[in-house]
């Protein structure tokens, strides 16, 4: 449970505001007369004050606020005459509340007794609808408790963050410069040492060499001495000695420079640490314990449950974990939505629960925990759970999924379709044991918070929503990658895994990988926005994103690392580039555009979402039957052909293909040769034997490119030959040969 003193602190802060609103409102009523606007303002203030007081269980303040609320309501509705004589009474109540608030601030509890006279008086007034004269109350209010805090606009803190971000960039640039300086100094030091050594060895050698007869000493200092009095010096000696001395001085200086630059870098390290502390404490300024939010929500939810005749118990754990104020504000709606759903559709009525052996009281658990820089909120109810079969049915009937797609999806992935817009369209739709609408809105809100939401459920047992959001919005954890020699960043929250291209050599052509028994479509980043993909880098990484259970992959050239930075918005001029969330600057000041993974894969979502149920529609320009035992071949070919507005049927062996041919009209067959149950040769043979299909074009698709295979297939009646791996162009050409794509516009 959340720390009570913490809550009281917030209550005191809030109550100060409400009391001030009340006092100002009363002044206005008295001086400017009764206006509906003022009345409503003070009515709202008492209402909220009542709510906040009851959360921290200050019942006396809550009661007084409640009475005032009733009184104001009656005045607003003109049930009671709008007369200034009422103000004295209100003042007394307010004063009484202030006294309680003062007690709370001193002792953390309401000490004195509630003045029942006032309460009764208000009750009487409301009942009899007349203003009873009360004795003049003093016009002086007791002062509100001194609270050692100031309220600051979030915008101010945000601008501090901007400045801090700038400081960090500058610091990084200076740090880099400092490294350059160190390298420079080290280089100079090396050369200096070399020079010094050269000089020393030269002078040593020269020292030992005998002097030639002809060398004359010019320096008068030396000529004043006789040869016996002094070592024999000539100009070279003096020169080398001087050089040696100078070199020594330089060396000395260089050593000082080295220690200077060492000091400098340790200073920079300290500065760096201080900046991080500054960032953290700045962040903590706008952090609030999530328990405040959860308490508020659970109060509201208990009301809902009561109204529906359901009994619930709410368990909150981890309420002391703090989150950023903007996150805090934006979480309210989605959380309350999920909880309302849990009560509306999840928790059964007490009778129902007892009859199936559950305790009458439903249990809702709100668990909050920290995972690094993220906060994970799990909301579990022990209600009906979600019926996966109903989800499948609805997904099918709304055309969100096909049977075939479901075939290779696990329950978790299918369940995630409840978040898809249009999954259910009306508030009343309650898919048996599931949840109503609005989950896509929940998801949108969570996505705005750069968070993720997942759902787990077991029928008749439980439903869990797992929300993962960053603790703070201003600093984002980014993965930096390179593509086509440019650097980009992507928020790390959706990233599940990073694979190397070596394990998936065909990914560039197939745009599909089979990873952990999941088929994941891959987008090649360099092909998204660059028309020329000139040089193909050998290196490559596949970033796997997990969007609430739906996985997508992005192929990039190189991964450069991870960074925690503040993202700058692109500004109004560029904001149309919705594929970017904003940009960050590298330590060197190079801009890196931060891609929005949701946008990158958006059309795919839209495609699955809005695909209408027009199976036999005439909108298609032709119908193709694909026969292949490899699901990835079927899938990729299907995607490719569907993009060309062709209706595609798929079969995994010859027999299935014949069945489809019986039922559907097909314009062309593309078949593999090696397949289980009935192989391709036999399929071709059977098709050709059937008089109905004697002119049906058949293309053989195989990895066996030898002449022998080709000839055999052609002998049996195949019309074309396609060797795996295939590319789009070949297929398009082949299909146009058979008049299938004759009108194609691509």
């Amino acid at each position, binding site marked *: 449970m959340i720390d009570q003193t913490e809550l009281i602190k917030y209550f005191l802060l809030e109550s100060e505001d409400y009391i001030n609103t009340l006092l100002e409102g009363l002044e206005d009523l008295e001086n400017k007369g009764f206006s509906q606007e003022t009345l409503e303002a003070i009515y709202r203030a008492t209402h909220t004050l009542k709510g906040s007081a009851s959360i921290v269980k200050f019942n006396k303040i809550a009661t007084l606020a409640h009475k005032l609320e009733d009184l104001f309501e009656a005045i607003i509705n003109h049930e009671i005459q709008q007369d200034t004589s009422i103000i004295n009474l209100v003042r007394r109540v307010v004063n009484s509340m202030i006294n309680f608030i003062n007690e709370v601030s001193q002792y953390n509890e309401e000490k004195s007794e509630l003045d029942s006279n006032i309460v009764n008086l208000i009750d009487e007034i409301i009942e009899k609808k007349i203003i009873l004269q009360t004795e003049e109350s003093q016009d002086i209010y007791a002062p509100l408790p001194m609270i050692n805090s100031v309220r600051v606009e979030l915008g101010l803190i945000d601008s501090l963050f901007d400045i801090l971000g700038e400081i960090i960039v500058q610091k990084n640039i200076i740090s880099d410069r400092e490294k350059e300086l160190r390298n420079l100094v080290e280089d100079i030091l090396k050369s200096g040492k070399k020079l010094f050594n050269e000089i020393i060895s030269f002078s040593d050698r020269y020292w030992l060499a005998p002097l030639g007869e002809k060398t004359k000493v010019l320096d008068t200092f030396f000529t004043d001495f006789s040869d016996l009095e002094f070592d024999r010096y000539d100009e070279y000696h003096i020169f080398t000695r001087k050089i040696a001395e100078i070199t020594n001085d330089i060396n000395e200086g260089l050593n000082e420079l080295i220690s200077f630059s060492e000091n400098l870098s340790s200073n920079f390290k300290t500065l760096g640490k201080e900046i991080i502390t500054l960032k953290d404490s700045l962040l903590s300024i706008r952090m609030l314990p999530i328990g405040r939010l959860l308490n508020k929500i659970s109060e509201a939810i208990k009301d809902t449950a009561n109204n529906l005749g359901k009994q619930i118990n709410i368990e909150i754990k981890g309420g002391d974990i703090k989150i950023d104020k903007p996150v805090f504000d934006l979480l309210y709606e989605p959380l309350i939505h999920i909880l309302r759903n849990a009560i509306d559709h999840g928790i059964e009525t007490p009778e129902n629960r007892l009859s199936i052996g559950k305790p009458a009281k439903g249990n809702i658990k709100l668990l909050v925990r920290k995972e690094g820089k993220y906060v994970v909120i799990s909301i579990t109810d022990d209600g009906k759970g979600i019926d996966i079969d109903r989800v499948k049915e609805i997904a099918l009937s709304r055309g969100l999924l096909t049977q075939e797609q479901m075939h290779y999806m696990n329950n978790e992935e299918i369940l995630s379709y409840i978040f898809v817009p249009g999954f259910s369209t009306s508030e009343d739709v309650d898919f048996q044991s599931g949840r109503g609408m609005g989950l896509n809105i929940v998801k949108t809100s969570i996505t705005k918070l750069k968070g993720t939401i997942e759902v787990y459920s077991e029928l008749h047992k439980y439903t869990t929503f797992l929300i993962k959001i960053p603790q703070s919005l201003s600093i984002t954890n980014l993965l930096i990658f390179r593509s086509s020699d440019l650097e980009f960043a992507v928020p790390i929250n959706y990233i599940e895994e990073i694979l190397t291209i070596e394990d998936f050599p065909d990914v560039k052509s197939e745009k599909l990988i089979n990873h952990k028994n999941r088929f994941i479509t891959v987008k090649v980043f360099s092909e998204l926005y660059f028309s020329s993909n000139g040089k193909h880098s050998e290196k490559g990484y596949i970033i796997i994103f997990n969007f609430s259970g739906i996985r997508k992959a992005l192929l990039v050239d190189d991964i450069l690392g991870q960074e925690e930075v503040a993202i700058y918005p692109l*500004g109004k*001029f*560029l904001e149309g580039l919705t594929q970017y969330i904003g940009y960050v600057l590298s330590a060197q000041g190079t*801009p890196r555009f931060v891609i929005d993974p949701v946008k990158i894969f958006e059309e795919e979502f839209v495609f699955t979402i809005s695909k209408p149920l027009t199976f036999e529609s005439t909108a298609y320009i032709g119908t193709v039957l694909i026969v292949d035992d490899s699901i990835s071949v079927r899938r990729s070919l299907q995607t490719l052909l569907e993009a060309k507005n062709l209706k595609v049927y798929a079969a995994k062996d010859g027999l299935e293909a014949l069945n489809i041919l019986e039922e559907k009209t097909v314009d062309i067959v593309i078949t593999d040769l090696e397949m289980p149950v009935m192989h391709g040769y036999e399929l071709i043979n059977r098709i050709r034997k059937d008089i109905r299909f004697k002119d049906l074009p058949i293309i053989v698709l195989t990895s066996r490119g030898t002449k022998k295979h080709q000839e055999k297939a052609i002998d049996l009646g195949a019309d074309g030959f396609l060797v795996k791996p295939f590319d789009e162009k070949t297929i398009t050409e082949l299909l146009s040969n058979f008049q299938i794509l004759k009108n194609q516009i691509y």
Partner: protein
Amino acid sequence: MSEEIREEKHFCVFGIGEREFLIPKESVIQVLDITKIFPIPGSPDYIVGALPVRGKIIPAIDLAKVYNIERINYSENKLLVLDVEGEKIGILSDITPFFVSFDKEIVVDDYLDPKKLYEELKIKQPSSNKTNENLP
């Protein structure tokens, strides 16, 4: 007549290829030497890229692409930074921009209204695919 106060308008002149344009002096906030421009993948071709300036980026616009002007050489590239309602945008100039003043009455040719230019060249949000996004 002699005491008449002549009101003048101040312009900044910049050039692209053979052409010269005028823009009100008030909207020009600085002229930068172009060191390195970083391309913005996915942007229209008249946006040649972004120039990082003091921790922020300024989009660089090549009006040659907008007005179909042929360039003979890329001699001296400068970026004219404009402030349009608090937003900074940059326009490439092949010459070093200079300032001129004209009598208020004179109608100048090749005059560019920064606000209009901004609105015209601003990247529009894709209108489709937005339906589900903005639901309350």
